[in-house]
């Protein structure tokens, strides 16, 4: 069984594996990663609709030569809260963790309120605080608008 999986997604020497992404959400995760900006020699592997004991079905993304910024991890935590992130160095998993939503999320989402001051020409980034964790509800620190849908708001 292991061998079959190896064929589906090849191992990487250095980079990041994002596993346990909710079924069908890997394309959004790629959008967050900004794969267009990658080193052109890096390989990105995406597995959609993979059998998972824990989740039924899941997606997996592997990116060579990339370690995620805190901001990208926060964005993934919003879109794919079940995801786990493994840092690979020299073919070995050096670090594995789940994505955690911090109390404040800076610059990841645009405020859905078009009249919010953060959409004006001001030298500030969008900022949300977690108003509720299950299910996740965020509140704009500036205009206090609540949000519970994040995909359309990715900055």
């Amino acid at each position, binding site marked *: 069984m292991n061998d079959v999986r190896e064929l589906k997604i090849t191992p990487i020497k250095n980079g990041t594996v994002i596993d346990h992404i909710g079924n069908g959400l890997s394309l959004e995760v790629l959008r967050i990663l900004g794969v267009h900006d990658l080193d052109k020699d890096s390989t990105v592997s995406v597995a959609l609709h993979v059998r998972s004991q824990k989740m039924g079905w899941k997606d997996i993304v592997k990116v060579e030569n990339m370690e995620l910024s805190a901001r990208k991890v926060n964005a993934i935590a919003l879109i794919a809260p079940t995801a786990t992130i493994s840092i690979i160095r020299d073919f070995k998993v050096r670090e594995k963790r789940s994505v955690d939503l911090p109390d404040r999320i800076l610059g990841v989402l645009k*405020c859905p*309120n078009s*009249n*919010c*001051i*953060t*959409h*004006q*020409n*001001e*030298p*500030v980034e969008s900022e949300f605080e977690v108003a509720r964790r299950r299910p996740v*509800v965020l509140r*704009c*620190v*500036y*205009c*206090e*608008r*609540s949000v519970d849908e994040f995909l359309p708001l990715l900055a």
Partner: protein
Amino acid sequence: MSLKGRDLISIRDLSREEIEEVLKASRRMIPIAQGERSSRALDGRLLALAFFEPSTRTRLSFETAAQRLGARCVSIADVASSSVRKGESLYDTTRMLAAYGDAIVLRHPNEGAGRLAALASDKPVINAGDGAGQHPSQTLLDLATMHEAFGTLTGLRVVLLGDLKYGRTVHSLAHALAVFGAELVLSSPASLKLPPDVRDHLDQLGAKVVEEDELPKAVKDADVLYVTRIQKERFGDEAEYAKVAGSYRIDNALLNSAKSRLIVMHPLPRAGEIAPEVDATPHAAYFRQAFLGVPVRMALLSLILTGKAG
């Protein structure tokens, strides 16, 4: 905790105890606000007023409050001729005002402007209304009016009537009343109901909230009838506005079935929601409410600038 040096951007910035402190201080300011006593409590202080949106009552009452306590005001008189017109950010404008004045009072058309100004300024910022967002000094004067009439806020049955969706005063007021354990009765046209996130927030505070769209039923056991103006500018369609605007009107016939101590409040200006005949009844509290804007803002300025209640 002292209010000295603090910003006031949203009513959520204040604890119940701090709101009580402001209300208590505002009661002591009434004789000064009425000109019966004079005070120089804020002598030598300079308040910077930045009103990027038209306002009569709020602006005038802040200026009056400052001057009754001996402070002076500078202001951006005409946004059209100021550097804002030349594309200066609110952030930069606020930094400049903070360099000139001891505190800033800001009214701005964008929601969140108050919070941004507070970030830019090292002097206290008082939000005097940001778009359809927060207007905490209005909430405080609303509470002061109810407290003056009943001696308490806890247990009052308060009907919030009208535009509960866009009305900027209503969301902050509902929050504050929930904090004090008042009972809320929501009464609005179907298209102007309280937004779900505001309702959720009230539930989280453990507030007692009921909906009653039939006005006579809503008013029957109420202590306070808080009427809001339906804002024409929120409707794209004139006919839709007319339909909703005509859907409620407070008159003496309606108030005949109310408690004798019921007070009718309105943030003003009114646009036909309350018949002029109500003005002559003991129910009418809206002009008293407008007056209390001055002592409440005196209390705020005094507590924020000096940490003392006058």
